[in-house]
C-alpha cells in the first residue's frame, strides 16, 4: 500500500471564474460608457429636487456662467448632434456671409459648445486647441439688447431641428439679471417652456 505523505503543495487558485466575471463587467462598462463631453464653460449647477433626467437627444444647451467682474455673465451655446451643428453653420454662412472651409466645418461639428461672437467664429476655428481654451475663459455670445446673437443661435438651431428642446445650464452664482435676459430672449421667440439643468438633491421629508 502506498503511504500517503502530507505533501507540501503550492496552492493555486483557479482564477478562471474571476477572470470571466471581470471581463464580463469590462464588456458591460465598455458598452454602456458614455464619456462626458468636455465642457468649454465651467459651470457649477445648483441642486434641486427635480428628478427628470435630461433627454440625451434633440437638445440645445445654453450655458451661463458669471464673468470675471461677477456682475455680468458669459453665455455659451451647444447642441447635441453633429448634424444639427453643421446645419447651424450653414445658416450662419447664409445669414452673415462668412465662408467656412471643410476643415473649419469639421472642427465646428465636434465642438460641444461655442462661446464666441459670429464675427470671431472663423478665427476661433483656426486657432489651436490651447488657444481656444484661453479664448473660452473670457469670451461669450453677445446677449445685449442691441446685439443679441443668442437669439440667432436659438433660431438657427430650431430651424435645423424643429424637435429641439432647450435647457439652461447656469452656474449657481450667475447674477439673476443675466438669467432674466436669456429668459427674455427665449420669450421673444415664443419659447415659454424650457428646462433648467440641476443636480439631484434629496427631497425633504415633510
Amino acid at each position: 500500500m502506498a503511504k500517503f505523505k502530507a505533501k507540501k503543495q503550492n496552492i493555486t487558485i483557479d482564477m478562471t471564474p474571476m477572470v470571466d466575471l471581470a471581463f464580463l463587467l469590462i464588456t458591460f462598462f465598455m458598452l454602456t460608457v458614455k464619456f462626458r463631453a468636455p465642457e468649454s464653460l465651467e459651470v457649477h449647477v445648483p441642486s434641486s429636487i427635480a428628478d427628470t433626467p435630461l433627454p440625451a437627444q434633440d437638445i440645445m444647451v445654453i450655458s451661463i456662467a458669471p464673468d470675471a467682474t461677477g456682475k455680468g455673465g458669459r453665455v455659451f451655446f451647444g447642441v447635441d448632434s453633429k448634424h444639427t451643428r453643421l446645419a447651424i453653420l450653414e445658416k450662419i454662412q447664409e445669414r452673415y456671409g462668412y465662408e467656412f472651409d471643410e476643415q473649419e466645418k469639421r472642427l465646428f461639428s465636434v465642438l460641444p459648445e461655442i462661446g464666441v461672437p459670429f464675427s470671431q467664429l472663423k478665427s476661433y476655428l483656426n486657432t489651436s486647441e490651447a488657444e481656444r481654451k484661453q479664448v473660452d475663459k473670457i469670451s461669450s455670445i453677445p446677449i445685449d439688447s442691441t446685439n443679441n446673437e443668442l437669439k440667432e443661435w436659438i433660431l438657427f438651431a430650431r430651424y435645423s431641428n424643429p424637435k429641439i428642446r432647450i435647457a439652461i445650464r447656469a452656474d449657481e452664482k450667475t447674477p439673476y439679471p443675466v438669467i432674466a435676459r436669456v429668459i427674455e430672449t427665449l420669450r421673444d421667440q415664443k419659447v415659454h417652456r424650457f428646462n433648467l439643468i440641476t443636480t439631484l438633491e434629496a427631497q425633504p421629508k415633510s
Partner: protein
Amino acid sequence: MAAEVGGDSGAPKKGKKSGKAHKPKKRPRIDMTPMVDLGFLLLTFFVLTTTMSTPNTMPVVVPPKITEKDKDVEPPKISEDKVITLLVSRGKIYYYAGLEKNLQVTDFSPKTGIRKILLERRAEVEANYGKDEMIVIIKMMEDAQYRDFVDILDEMAVINQKKYALVEITPEEKDIVEEYRKTMEKTL
C-alpha cells in the same frame, strides 16, 4: 496511465512511487495573472469614467409676452386675499401677503424659512376659499443669483404649489425693500 493528473493540484499524485524515472506529461498552464491585472485595470477605468447619473432638469414655464395684439385684454383679476408676493434677493426673501405692503423677511432655511410661511399662508387661504386657491407671485430682485431662482422654484415643487407666476419687480417694490433694509440697519 494515471500520471497525467499533474494539472489538477487537488488530487494526490499517483504513480510516483514507481521506480522508473517517468516524466509526467504536464498540461501547459498559462499564467493568467497579467491578464487579470489588465482586466481589473480596465474594469476600474470604466467604472470610474462611466457616468451613471445623467443630469436632471427642472421644467419652467414662463408666460408669453404681451404683444400689440392683446394690449386691450384686461389681465385677469385675482383677489388679493389669495396672493402672497415674494421678492427674492440673494439668500433672502422679502414677502408680503395681499396688497398691504408691510414687508417681512425670511430665508431658505428648511424648517423656519419660506416653506413655513407659504404653508401657513396656504392654510389661511384654504380656510377661506378652498383648496389650491393660493397664488404665489415671485419677483426676482437684481441682486439675486441663479441659485436663488432655482431655490424658489424648487420650494414651489416641494410644497406642490401649482399656481405661481414669475413677474417683473416694480420700482415701487424696490423702494420698499430699500427702505426696509435701512430701517433694519438702524434697529441693529
